């Protein structure tokens, strides 16, 4: 079993939930980079959230930086990796909604092959991802933001810090040259479905339309309907559905405001 940062895996091994015979340390593979190449932003799977927060390269990716800042605490972020977070494929993975909103692609390497999977297709179920047993994630890639684009991430949990997401949402809005029409939009929700998901019906309500507070409110309501939340020890289904609407609305409003200033 590969080990990245270990801040999640070692909790499971100590609790007896996982008993690997061997751990393969991924830290010697040179996958800790955060760099720009060919107009894309490439984040190595072993890049820590601290490195993502500190990098100038990722600075423009507001929604990702916002989510990284809310993962765990300083001690976690110095060790936990983006690859580990995504490959855990927990529905509440904090870096998933921003990366979905950014239309990220996952670069994968196996024994004899390399392939690229859109992040949209990478989560296959709760704690299940598209990696085959002999594959590892190498890198997450996103395009640099086009002009007049704003992104935002919102998370609500049981407390203000060191908290699992009860609901999370990320939004990206790109405006056209007039600054009035929504040329592109992506909305992603976390912790309210078996996998982090894109709210595609809400997106299609907005794409190509004139941006307005009213339209955003209606799109947020649709996004909440696309969620499939459950009741668990952290929150009820009803709460999650209600808060999905609120967080999507806020994330869209913030993304819109930022797009207007961009």
């Amino acid at each position: 079993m590969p080990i990245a940062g270990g801040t999640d895996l070692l909790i499971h091994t100590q609790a007896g939930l996982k008993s690997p015979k061997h751990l393969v340390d991924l830290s010697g593979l040179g996958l800790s980079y955060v760099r720009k190449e060919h107009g894309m932003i490439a984040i190595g799977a072993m890049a820590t959230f601290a490195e993502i927060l500190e990098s100038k390269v990722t600075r423009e990716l507001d929604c990702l930086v916002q989510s990284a800042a809310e993962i765990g605490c300083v001690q976690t972020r110095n060790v936990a990796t983006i690859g580990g977070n995504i490959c855990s494929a927990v529905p509440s993975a904090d870096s998933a909604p921003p990366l979905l909103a950014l239309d990220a692609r996952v670069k994968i390497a196996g024994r004899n092959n390399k392939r690229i999977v859109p992040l949209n297709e990478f989560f296959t179920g709760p704690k299940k991802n598209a990696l085959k047993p002999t594959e590892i994630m190498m890198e997450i890639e996103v395009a640099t933001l086009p002009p007049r684009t704003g992104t935002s991430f919102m998370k609500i949990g049981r407390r203000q810090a060191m908290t699992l997401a009860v609901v999370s949402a990320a939004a990206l809005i790109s405006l056209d040259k007039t600054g009035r029409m929504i040329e592109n939009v992506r909305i992603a929700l976390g912790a309210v479905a078996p996998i982090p998901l894109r709210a595609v019906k809400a997106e299609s309500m907005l794409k190509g339309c004139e941006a307005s507070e009213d339209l955003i409110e209606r799109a947020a309501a649709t996004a909440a309907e696309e969620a499939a939340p459950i009741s668990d020890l952290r929150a009820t289904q009803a709460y999650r559905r209600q808060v999905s609407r609120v967080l999507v609305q806020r994330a869209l409003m913030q993304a819109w405001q930022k797009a207007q200033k961009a």
Partner: protein
Amino acid sequence: MAFDKGMTERQIEFIVNGELVQVCVKPQDLLVDVLRDQLGLIGTKKGCGTGECGACTVIMNGRLINACLLLALRANGKEFLTIEGMGTPEHLHPLQQSFIDHGAVQCGFCAPGMLLSAKSLLDSNPHPTEYEIRYAIAGNLCRCTGYSKIVQAIQAVAEGNGKV
């Protein structure tokens, strides 16, 4: 631990509080246990074992980490600061003095981790706001003080009432 016991021991070396040490560790050993049990550095505490309380906080290559979530093998070749390396009984670190002066220590269990987090903060941000202080110590739980005195103690040093 759920790993197979009876795995081969390996020798590693690392620097802790300025001193080079060599220890034999099993693959499943955690840094917090090596520090405490093999090196006698019991200032680093074990609280939750899941990286949520920060009692095991140490500084590794200049970065704050939870020693309960670091496999000892990964310590090889790295440099660590534990609470024992912060100030001396004769010359306390300004943060340690400030914690005493402000009543920021009750049972003392969180204090080693809390002080290292505070030091790490002030090393990179010498004049943090109250929000930045609370954000920086968010990974260090205190069951006694309610955090007010801890924040005040850090603020006092940050505002220059004690040199860092």
